[in-house]
């Protein structure tokens, strides 16, 4: 595919991007509890140049911890579309993979990959902070090699993703609520 071709400038920029990843964590699921130990003294995420960010405008990673109900999925899609490119998504825990223990719930979605492009999944319920750091290192490697192309896939297959979103949510109205 043409998505993997990068100019020399993009290659240099990808090196920088892999070393300074700012993360927006969407913590509605129980996986949020694994983040404090990864950030604080014991596992210390900041030594990789990673850190939490309070707003989607500055975030590189959208970190989805655990299950998403139909209501929160709408917010996740808004948030994802507000992030500046290039952007990466990590699905954390089995809930984002196949629904986990909520696989037959009427209110949650089962596969996050249908709605926004996920670059990396962390399987498990719960994954430990070690798994989290392993995943971050894997994501950095993917960014350096130009394999973390979820945001390009989203643009290329926008109709497909939009169709899936509409099927689950009824309507997805991306709007800028501050400029109306």
């Amino acid at each position, binding site marked *: 595919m043409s998505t993997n071709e990068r100019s020399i400038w993009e290659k240099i920029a990808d090196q*920088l991007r892999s070393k*300074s990843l700012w993360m927006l964590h969407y913590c509605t699921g129980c996986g949020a509890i694994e983040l404090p130990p990864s950030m604080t003294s014991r596992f210390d995420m900041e030594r990789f*140049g990673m850190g939490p960010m*309070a707003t989607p*405008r*500055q975030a590189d990673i959208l970190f989805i911890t655990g299950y998403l109900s139909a209501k929160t999925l709408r917010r996740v899609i808004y948030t994802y579309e507000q992030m500046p490119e290039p952007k990466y998504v990590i699905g954390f825990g089995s809930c984002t993979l196949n629904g986990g223990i909520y696989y037959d719930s009427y209110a949650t979605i089962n596969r996050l990959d249908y709605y926004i492009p996920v670059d990396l999944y962390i399987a498990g319920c719960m994954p430990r902070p070690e798994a989290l750091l392993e995943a971050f290192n894997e994501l950095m490697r993917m960014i350096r090699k130009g394999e973390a192309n979820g945001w390009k896939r989203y643009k290329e297959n926008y109709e497909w993703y939009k169709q899936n979103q509409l099927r689950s949510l009824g309507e997805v109205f991306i709007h800028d609520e501050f400029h109306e």
Partner: protein
Amino acid sequence: MTVLRVIAVLLTGFFVGLTLEGIARKIMARVQRRYGPPWYQNFIDVFKALSKRGISHGWIFDFGILMALGGVIATLAFVPLGDLVAFPGLDNIFIIVYLFAVGALGMAMGMVGSGNPNASIGVARALTQMLGYEVPYLVAIAGVLYYYKTSSVSGLMMAQQDTWTLFKMPIGGIVAFISLLGMLGKKPFDTPIAPAEIASGPMVELSAKYMGLLMLMHTFSIFVEISLFVDIFLGISNYLTFLLKFTVVWIIATLISAVLPRFRIEQVVKFYWKVPLSLAFVQVLFVLLGWVF
């Protein structure tokens, strides 16, 4: 020659400022018993932010950010770094204080132009906090200006032949340092950018290159603020000893900020107008009475 000196001042601000911010993150990490990011992390952050593709929020937003960065760069060009003075004879403290407001107002305009209510709250807090620290700071500085009978910053530096102003006027020095913490937005006074309350306040709508430019603006304004304190209070210095004193002041501010929680905005103003302002008046009274060591 002036052009070369201005370039030297700006490059010092860029490299030393970003390096020291990285070192501050490292120190903060060590205080919390973490390993911490490498010292060059802030260079990576700035260039990464510049490499991303963000969105604008209209021409007021763009213009405000350029005005903030340009205003702070213009201010920095007037600040003497030890014996490196870009515009000799023009490094008056009033010029620097007035020009510095251009950067702050440009940032306020641009951020309010983004239309996000969190940004408006952050800007309102930043300007309120400015009202808090500027008053005691300027009263303490007025005492210094009255004592040395000059308002040129390098004149104030050269007037400290016998001993540092910090030891001549210890109360004024402490007041200026507490105000400096507020200017830097260090921990007890980081109310305007509180990430957990108002989603990093003024910066909430900044993406990509706008964020990169604002990080540079922040670095340069840190350089202006600490440089003024070092020039006025910490004795005569050449370029190298200036950078040494600068580093020491920055590290002390970082250490204080590493162990303190955050004030609310009304607590900030109440604190500044009670303790440092009274101390500043006491210092001015001492100067008027001639009780200077």
